């Protein structure tokens, strides 16, 4: 019983802390202790959010960002898994391309989105390509190391039963890759979302990254807060959905 009481107290304390923060923020702004130009105000932030929700701005822009991330993620997973399989299964290929992938993994890929806008213009495609570019190398590295770590006993058994490379791919590596994709999804999707938002910072006309940068350019801190809250909300919702999906998809697996 005492553990339950403790939990209730903690949850109440958490809610209280959030309310108190908002209240202090509001008080600081209304009494003029701190200029709302610098820290924004909870009321105008709420009003901005409410207007966005009411006129559909919020959902429309969040949708664009999620769509960019989703398409980029899907393409990145498909292409990355294919390449990762190839370099994982053919040892020489793995060794030969190793420095190449080390380089791209150390490359500041999230900061490279301006290049794609130069090549493809300020387009939706450019942002999707940027997302693909960011997550592709993660997927490749991970798939390749996954292929190398497949159970040796399983491998020798299946080879003993007369399986060639093609059967190995179909019966062992492809099914396992589904598990790798699922277990790393939270990580890769977060990266994809991150990349999509950043790509909207330059020359976009929709998306939550665009809303953030618009607020900055208008020197409207409340608008940036509203956009940041949207970003956080989208990220948390996507993350929670993934946790649920992961639990559902791996429900067959022994714990």
């Amino acid at each position: 019983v005492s553990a339950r009481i403790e939990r209730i107290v903690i949850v109440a304390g958490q809610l209280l802390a959030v309310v108190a923060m908002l209240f202090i923020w509001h008080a600081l702004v209304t009494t003029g202790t701190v200029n709302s130009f610098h820290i924004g105000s909870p009321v105008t932030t709420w009003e901005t959010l409410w207007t966005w929700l009411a006129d559909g701005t919020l959902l429309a822009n969040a949708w664009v960002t999620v769509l960019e991330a989703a398409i980029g993620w899907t393409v990145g997973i498909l292409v990355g898994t294919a390449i990762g399989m190839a370099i994982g299964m053919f040892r020489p290929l793995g060794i030969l391309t190793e420095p190449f992938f080390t380089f791209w993994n150390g490359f500041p890929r999230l900061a490279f989105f301006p290049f794609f806008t130069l090549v493809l213009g300020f387009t939706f495609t450019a942002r999707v390509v940027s997302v693909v570019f960011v997550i592709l190398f993660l997927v490749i590295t991970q798939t390749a190391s996954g292929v190398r770590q497949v159970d040796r006993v399983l491998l020798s058994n299946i080879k003993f039963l007369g399986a060639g490379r093609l059967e190995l791919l179909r019966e062992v590596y492809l099914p396992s890759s589904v598990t790798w994709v699922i277990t790393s999804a939270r990580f890769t999707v977060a990266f994809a979302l991150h990349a999509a938002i950043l790509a909207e910072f330059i020359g976009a006309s929709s998306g939550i990254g665009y809303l953030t940068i618009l607020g900055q350019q208008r020197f409207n801190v409340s608008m940036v807060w509203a956009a940041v809250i949207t970003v956080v909300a989208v990220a948390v919702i996507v993350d929670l959905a993934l946790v649920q999906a992961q639990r559902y998809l791996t429900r067959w697996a022994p714990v």
Partner: protein
Amino acid sequence: MTALAWRLGQLSIFALMVVAWELIGLWRPILAVELSSPGLVIQELRGMLDLDGWNHVWVTLSTAAFGCAVGTAMACIATLVLASNRLLRNFLSPFIVILNAVPRVALAPLFILWFGIGIRAGTAFVIAIIFFLVFVNLFTGVQTIDRLYLMNARALGGGKLWILREVYIPSVLAWLIASLRNAVALALLGAAVAELIAGTAGLGFLIAQGTNSGNSAEVIAAALILALVTLLANSVISRVERNLLAWQLSQ
């Protein structure tokens, strides 16, 4: 095959790619404007380093290093203060979950509004994102400290301070070293992104400048320098990591 042969193979693949990239430009000069070419990038790099390139490298590097050091130190202090108390830890954990899901680099515009255009915004931004990254890591680290250790330490008569010194600090240190590599990469990236959005100097600023003037070679050259710096920092840290965590691996 010997190691030397593999090295040669790797080098020839690299050479092949560079040649292919150059050939695309020669085949369709219009593509070279967008995709640039090795020749153009080298020319750009040379120009950068002749002019004030080192200055830009220095700005990004010092912003990242300073922000990383301060952010990490703050995260360590916060962990030691907050995490040894179970009640406080339970209080904080939902906030930590949310913080962890936030796309960190996407928060840069907020800092630019607060601190204005220039180095100060970048530094503050790097401090903040590194603080959150390291703090979240250390916090999870403390949460996974084996309860057995704690109970044993208490049974052996260890006081609060003793447990802090003998149990918390060593395990937090291990997590700290493990998160350092991510922290350094994120610090460099964060510094570059802040410069990219609203900077007056630094490698990110060069990327923005190249974008605005439609000069792909400049964008690629600046990103290349940033990549080299990141790789260099990575290799230094993995060496440090290997030395400091040798006791863990040998167990």
